[in-house]
């Protein structure tokens, strides 16, 4: 098989942005450089054209076909966050890193939520698109 004729697997952000309007201002988002595929897994065709109506149908495609939307999976564990943000001395010093996870959660929760839950995932305080922590009372 010719090396050039293989199918591409990673599609890049443009593939997603063909259909999805970004919900955030890319210029301001600190995670603007993080590709969609990092957390949303590899894009697969999740907008499937069908001929018949379906409760899941939310939009119409060109040519009168219906489009059935299936949710993309997302990794909501801490691992995708820690891959980049756990403290390692080899990382650039200016890169935001968490030296002590327990302390980070304890201090962070006190500041934002007023109570402590060290078992909560990163997403409890941080929006992946705008990683800055929510302010108090906004969850």
């Amino acid at each position, binding site marked *: *098989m*010719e*090396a*050039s*004729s*293989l*199918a*591409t*697997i*990673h*599609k*890049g952000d*443009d*593939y997603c942005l*063909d*259909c999805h309007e970004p919900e955030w201002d890319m210029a301001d988002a600190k*995670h603007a*450089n*993080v*590709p969609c*595929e*990092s957390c949303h897994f*590899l894009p697969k*065709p999740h*907008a*499937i*054209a*069908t*001929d018949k109506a379906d409760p899941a149908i939310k939009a119409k*495609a*060109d*040519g009168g*076909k219906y*489009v059935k939307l299936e949710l993309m999976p997302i990794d909501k564990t801490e691992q995708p966050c*820690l*891959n*980049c943000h*756990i*403290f*390692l*001395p*080899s*990382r*650039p010093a200016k*890169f935001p890193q968490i030296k002590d996870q327990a302390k980070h959660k304890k201090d962070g929760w006190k500041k934002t939520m007023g109570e402590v839950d060290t078992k909560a995932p990163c997403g409890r305080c941080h929006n992946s698109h705008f990683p800055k922590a929510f302010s108090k009372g906004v969850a």
Partner: protein
Amino acid sequence: MKMAASGMAGMLIVTLIPKSSSGQRIHNIEEMKHVPDWMDHYYAYVVDTTKCIGCGACARACKRENDTPDGYSRTWVERYQITDTGHVYIDSPDGGINSFPPKDVEGNVIKGFFVPKLCNHCRNTPCTQVCPVNASYESPQGVVLVDKKVCIGCGYCVQACPYDTRYIDPRTHTADKCTWCYHRVTKGLAPACVTVCPTKARIFGDLKMKNSQVREIIDNQRVMVLKPELNTEPYCFYIGLDRAVR
């Protein structure tokens, strides 16, 4: 080779269109908009070690994109930790594919960094010189490739590569290596590792393009190559390379 390459371009356009089950095109993906003239390109790769955070996204993307067998990797990330006791600790657990767990070292780390490694796509390349059947070759765009239909799996090239970037694929028993994602770059896309890098530590581009980022970096910044004493003329350049890097 020129004839074969230009003939392929037409075929690729057809295969790239993602279709629904009913055959209707849904996505108008970016790669459709750029069909490059293959002979007008000469590629180079830049790794900025000052930006790499060792997240391993590149290694994971490479494995998915190229379906490399378990235990083998076309690209990997090395962690360097230099302590105040003078020791240099180098490790790369599973090629950094699952990022890096914290590692205890003797003394305090006074200098640390990550160095992504991949095929250097040398101009004066030892791997193609030793191949007895000419299965390894350099494409007109400066990409070193292996023709798996010709390769006999003798492993000479694996031994000859001074950067340890080649391996024998246990499934096909032929040599395999980083192709700079040739199937992507010939469609106008960046290699998978470059696409997913969150800090833009990996940069790929065309030296023949005037506004190319790699050309600007190589022209204006202080870049280095791995093992320059071997005179292999790599086209994979490094920014911020330390003397501890081998």
